[in-house]
């Protein structure tokens, strides 16, 4: 018997294997089931445009869509964006990268039945970028480069930029940019979405029992198709269960009352879960685009004095803290204003030149005492405003108090639930020094560092620093990475070392142990990303 030629057999075998493999992949996703997950913080409001907490994004994001988003299958990439409400590829930019034209999908309807058009996208981005007087927008500063946003057709939106900027597309892809209906904004006002939901997301709102849970059910008219050719989502619904205490969240996963917690657990919790449940638990880990700070309120004395702020920063033993805190909290890396390991981030040699980053802790603290004395703030007593979330706020807060005590500063910790905590930062500005964080979604350093600008909507320090604003303007316009790097160091030195507007602690490290039957979810370098839940399915 003559065997067929290998030239023929090998490609055939490979083709068949690929076909079966693809068929296997296509039919792998199972439909149905309710995803129960736990959330460790409360919901201050439903409005993505003003909030910056996972307490809102985890339970509420699935109700909304965004214009573009980070590819849910490749969330670690800082450059892989795909259309959500637009069609085709994400636009590359025209007219020297100063014009971006988005073609909008024509098959999308809001949950109340209203068809989505370009006007809804335009109204949404106008609210985010050019909010009317008295309307808050937490990410307004991310869009400094935008000159205008207009509907240039029923299904076409055009953004015109003042100058080319590499941070524009990542800013548009931020998961907080929920697309609202123009009708809702016009008729119900710009604050209606704080307490009401009407989106185009994969799930429709069922109920919210404050302090207990948020429930969503599958939206039959969702615009994305699954691998099986039917509309997503795969899940019938989800329940976001409020569980402020970490132990409770951990036990919920252990007892299978919840399948996943999207934010992150400390190493100890991961080890306990794996030890107890073995292969029933899958662990995903990632660096985290999230840094924890202490922000002094510069509206109050003596925190309006840069010497006092610098002393508070000099007191911290960041390198020692990293070694030990990483064992008990979700923090790990010593860093400056930029996500560590990013090309724009400071190296260790550059970091140690900043105030409080030097490795000689004794010398740092001696200098801190001298500065306090010089500023007339010896034996300083202050109230430290902290957030009532265990990880990492309360753990790092306890560490901070101990560090400050070593330069003679006595801090009384006041822990508040998230709504009260935010009210103190935003409305009342009622704090001496507060825990603060710069948790960004898409890794986009030039946009991420806007948090340090006194003019930013999410900056609570109460200062105006024209020098820093000018440095940032130059950074925005820098054409090459080399140039951006140089200006970024200047920005970092001004913000963290000379003026010490914010006192950096450590960058976070994300560990997500979850039930192995949860499929389709990939860890991102941010707990805000990849939360539309439309790609998740349950292998039960």
């Amino acid at each position, binding site marked *: 018997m003559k065997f067929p030629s290998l030239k023929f057999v090998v490609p055939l075998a490979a083709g068949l294997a690929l076909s079966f493999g693809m068929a296997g992949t296509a039919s792998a996703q199972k439909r149905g089931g309710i995803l129960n997950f736990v959330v460790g913080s409360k919901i201050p409001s439903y409005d993505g445009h003003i909030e910056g907490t996972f307490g809102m994004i985890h339970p509420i994001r699935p109700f909304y869509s965004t214009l573009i988003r980070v590819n849910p299958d490749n969330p670690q990439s800082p450059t892989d964006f795909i259309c959500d409400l637009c069609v085709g590829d994400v636009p590359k930019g025209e007219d020297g990268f100063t014009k971006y034209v988005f073609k909008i999908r024509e098959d999308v309807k809001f949950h109340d039945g209203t068809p989505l058009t370009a006007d809804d996208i335009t109204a949404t981005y106008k609210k985010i970028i050019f909010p009317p007087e008295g309307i808050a927008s937490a990410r307004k500063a991310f869009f400094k480069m935008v000159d205008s946003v207009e509907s240039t057709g029923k299904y076409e939106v055009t953004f015109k930029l003042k100058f080319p900027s590499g941070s524009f597309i990542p800013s548009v892809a931020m998961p907080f940019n929920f697309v609202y209906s123009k009708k809702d904004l016009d008729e119900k006002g710009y604050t209606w979405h704080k307490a009401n939901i009407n989106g185009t997301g994969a799930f429709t709102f069922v109920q919210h029992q404050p302090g207990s849970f948020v429930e969503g059910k599958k939206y039959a008219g969702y615009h994305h198709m699954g691998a099986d050719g039917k509309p997503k989502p795969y899940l019938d619904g989800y329940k976001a269960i409020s569980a402020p205490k970490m132990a409770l969240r951990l036990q919920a996963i252990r007892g299978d009352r919840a399948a996943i917690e999207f934010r992150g657990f400390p190493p100890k919790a991961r080890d*306990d879960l794996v030890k107890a449940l073995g292969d029933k638990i899958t662990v995903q880990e990632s660096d985290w685009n999230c840094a924890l700070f202490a922000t002094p309120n510069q509206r109050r004395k003596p925190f309006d004095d840069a010497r006092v702020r610098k002393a508070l920063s000099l007191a911290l033993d960041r390198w*020692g803290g990293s070694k*030990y805190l990483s064992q008990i909290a979700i923090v790990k890396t010593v860093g400056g204003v930029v996500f560590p390991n990013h090309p724009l981030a400071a190296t260790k040699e550059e970091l140690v030149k900043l105030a409080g980053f030097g490795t000689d802790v004794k010398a740092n603290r001696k200098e801190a005492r001298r500065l306090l004395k010089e500023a007339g703030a010896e034996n300083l007593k202050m109230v430290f405003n902290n957030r009532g979330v265990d990880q990492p706020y*309360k753990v790092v807060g306890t560490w901070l108090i*101990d560090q400050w005590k070593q330069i003679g500063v006595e801090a*009384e*910790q*006041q*822990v*508040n639930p998230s709504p009260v905590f935010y009210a103190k930062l935003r409305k009342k500005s009622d704090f001496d020094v507060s825990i603060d964080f710069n948790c960004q979604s898409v890794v986009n350093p030039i946009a991420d560092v806007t948090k340090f600008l006194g003019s930013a909507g999410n900056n609570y320090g109460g200062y105006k620093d024209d020098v820093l604003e000018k440095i940032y303007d130059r950074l925005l316009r820098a054409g090459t990475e080399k140039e951006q790097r140089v200006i970024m160091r200047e920005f970092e030195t001004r913000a963290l070392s000379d003026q010490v507007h914010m006192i950096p602690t450590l960058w976070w490290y994300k560990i997500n142990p979850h039930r192995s039957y949860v499929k389709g979810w990939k860890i991102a370098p941010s707990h805000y990303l990849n939360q539309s839940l439309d790609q998740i399915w349950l292998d039960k």
Partner: protein
Amino acid sequence: MVTTSEVAVESEIEELTDKRPFMSQLREFGRKQPLGSIGLIIVLVMIFASVFAPILTPYDPEANAFEFMLTPPNLDFLLGTDQFGRDILSRIIYGARTALFVGFTAAFIGATIGLVLGVASAFFGGKFDLIFQRVMDVFMAFPLIILALAVVSIFGTGVQNVIIAITIPFIPRCARVVRSSALAIREIPYIDAARANGFSNSRIIMRHMVPNVMAPFLIMITAFVGQAILLEASLSYLGLGVQEPVPAWGLMLQGGAEEYVESAPWVAIWPGVAISLAVFGFNLFGDAVRDTLDPKLRSQ
């Protein structure tokens, strides 16, 4: 003719004004109330520990020492260390200060306000008594912890607010008990005599009625201290009481105990033992005080 209530009151007054030497009274208390004596010893040990905490503690209870984090009990750290490397023994001893301060303050203030209001309610009677008691009913309809949680959510966290939160639920409980005793005293002729002499209401209440309801007042205080310690620990455990790094037993349970209960059980066990012992001690002592001061139980 001498009424039953008069006999009871005179008997209580005699007991309160017993002129025997203190040590003799103490010995008799120990003989008659062995469990109460154990309670008293626990209470005294707590008071001693909290007063002499700076001398008794081997380490600063608030200082982080990460190089010793989660060390099991050994000769250097008799009860081990927590996740910040802090000595648990030192934190337990200092925690007694927080527990006693909150416990005594809340119990004394709550019981005292309850005493005055209860006596006033009984003295004035009529519509005032009726309305006042209905208000007390509303407060008493809430379980202690629920009412305390509501108060903390209004005033916020911290030692002062925790004291307020615990004090408020105690007021109606004391007022109700004291009122029942005061109702009997109100009918005794010397109160009528005081009225006939033209004494003011406040003078009659404060000088003639309040001293005669001291027995139930003292019993309530001792009972309240144990409850207050438990409430403070509960609130701190829920993150609504005192805050880190202040050493407090409930906070110690909340802080790391939940996370490390399997790998470092000593972090959870010792504060739990301290809370249990303290509440047990105060309850035993309170019961003994009640038995000693209550003429009905005493005659049995």
